[in-house]
């Protein structure tokens, strides 16, 4: 017998949300706030990636493109056209959807297989990165700076205070998680999982797989772009490698794998482990640290992938299952 036991998560979740909400009142040190902000950001990104990769089963290695497009949209529109960054974010999401459709149409209509799709997304990522490195209008390799304005929520910008950024990104994360939760309970969610489980069976059961793959991709890209826009407004300066490098794409995938691909909480758990580790190692070990944390990631990935492919989420889940043996 192999029964999946429902774990009562509500109490834990509310507890966590409350903890995170009051966190900035107790923790004032900038560095810790920064770590939390980065963790929330990458949890957002990983959860977004997971919509296409984990739920629908289409692995993308070039998801960083949407991150960068979100960042650059907000930066370029703000700098050259004085467009409000919130509008810039929405534009960034639209641009991301635009690019996603350019990739999706040839890929999904022709039934491109998983291997090829993964590499194609990686190739797109590289092409875009090189373009932005050499595109003077957006700053090229020198990067781009967000014009400084009065710190305010409307201007999506603060200078000395990290706390508002903390709440902004936390809100985005909560919003996305709630959305994903409702999706998993809806027809859309069932259909995505069916596509991942066996696409041909899904088609034969009446599912327009092409349509739903498109939708999953656009949804995924939108949230990543919003994350990118946030990043731009947070750092106030960036260059192409900071937002388009394949390492960023990997930072979206690894937490999802680590925490449990295809689950709601998995990417968050994964990010909660990886990002603080990354930040602390980098802070305390400096340049060498940057190398060591990747070695640790690499080993972590290997361990998870080889020994516990369902990720830590399953591991924790198993702790809650009361003695139901497997057949």
């Amino acid at each position, binding site marked *: 017998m*192999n*029964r*999946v036991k429902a774990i009562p998560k509500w109490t834990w979740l509310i507890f966590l949300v409350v903890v995170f909400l009051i966190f900035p009142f107790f923790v004032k040190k900038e560095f810790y706030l920064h770590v939390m902000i980065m963790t929330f950001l990458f949890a957002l990104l990983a959860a977004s990636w997971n919509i296409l990769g984990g739920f629908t089963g289409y692995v993308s290695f070039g998801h960083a493109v949407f991150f960068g497009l979100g960042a650059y949209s907000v930066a370029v529109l703000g700098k050259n056209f004085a467009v409000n960054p919130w509008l810039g974010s929405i534009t960034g999401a639209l641009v991301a959807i635009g690019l996603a459709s350019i990739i999706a149409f040839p890929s999904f209509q022709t039934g491109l297989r998983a291997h090829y799709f993964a590499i194609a997304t990686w190739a797109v990522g590289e092409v875009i990165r090189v373009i932005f490195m050499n595109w003077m209008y957006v700053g090229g390799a020198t990067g781009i700076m967000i014009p400084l304005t009065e710190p305010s929520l409307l201007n999506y910008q603060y200078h000395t205070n990290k706390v508002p950024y903390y709440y902004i990104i936390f809100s985005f994360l909560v919003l996305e998680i709630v959305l994903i939760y409702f999706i998993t309970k809806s*027809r859309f969610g*069932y259909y995505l999982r*069916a596509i991942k489980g066996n696409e*041909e069976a899904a088609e*034969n*059961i*009446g599912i327009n797989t092409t349509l739903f793959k498109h939708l999953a991709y656009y949804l995924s890209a939108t949230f990543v772009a919003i994350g990118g826009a946030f990043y731009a407004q947070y750092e106030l300066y960036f260059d192409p490698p900071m937002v388009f490098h394949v390492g960023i794409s990997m930072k979206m995938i690894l937490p999802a794998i680590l925490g449990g691909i295809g689950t709601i909480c998995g990417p968050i758990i994964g990010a909660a482990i990886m990002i603080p580790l990354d930040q602390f190692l980098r802070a305390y070990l400096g340049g060498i640290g940057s190398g060591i944390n990747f070695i640790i990631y690499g080993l972590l990935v290997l361990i998870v992938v080889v020994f516990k492919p369902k990720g830590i989420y399953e591991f924790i889940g198993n702790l809650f299952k009361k003695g139901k043996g497997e057949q």
Partner: protein
Amino acid sequence: MSNGGKESLLEVRNLTKRFRGVIANQDINMEVNSGEIIGLIGPNGAGKTTLFNMITGTRPKGASRLPDSGAVYFKRVKITGMKPNSICKLGLVRTFQLVRIWEEMTVLENVMTGVFRAMRSAREARKKSEDLLKFTGLYTKLDYLGSSLTIADKKRLEITRALGTKPDLLLLDEPMAGLTTTEINEALELIRQIHDQGITVLLVEHVIEAVMSIAHRVVVLDNGQKIADDRPEKVARDKRVIEAYLGEEYHVKS
């Protein structure tokens, strides 16, 4: 073509399909009338799978889903060349020889995904799915993971899921393969019950006793051509069929 007063549900007209250099289906003509149970039999390589694929819109590996000539009509709509999901929406659904349930989803979730073809609300879909599972006898295994089921139950699940799409015509691809005698009898009983609900059934099968005992009519393919299309007793005595497939004279259990 005389239907004996029955409504023609599926019509295959002059269907020819070349596949991998062989003529897999040559000028096939057949029909399925509403309320019938039709068996499709023949030796390996006769073209049953290709015909099945042409009807269901499944793309054979490395080939197109269009026939070289001829067409298939379902409810008078030409379905050749249509994608499987569109065909399903018309009321034609299939199962697979190598059963394709979603292993990582529960029994209930599998069925709900099928039921969503007919309704959007998750709550309604759950209710309908539970009813279907009661009908097919899998209700007690509601929240079992697909991967934990026996072959027989997986096939039963696949059928349940297909029923969720509210089909008028159910195509079964070797449903008895890999089943024990008891399981075969249970499967036959299920097919009878489905038929009693008003659903027309077309099954491809190698287990001859099973087909002969349940089908109203049996279509026999050999070498890409249809060589018989009649009641089971008649087909069992047909010389061409015996030569091509059945071997010695086969006696139908009436």
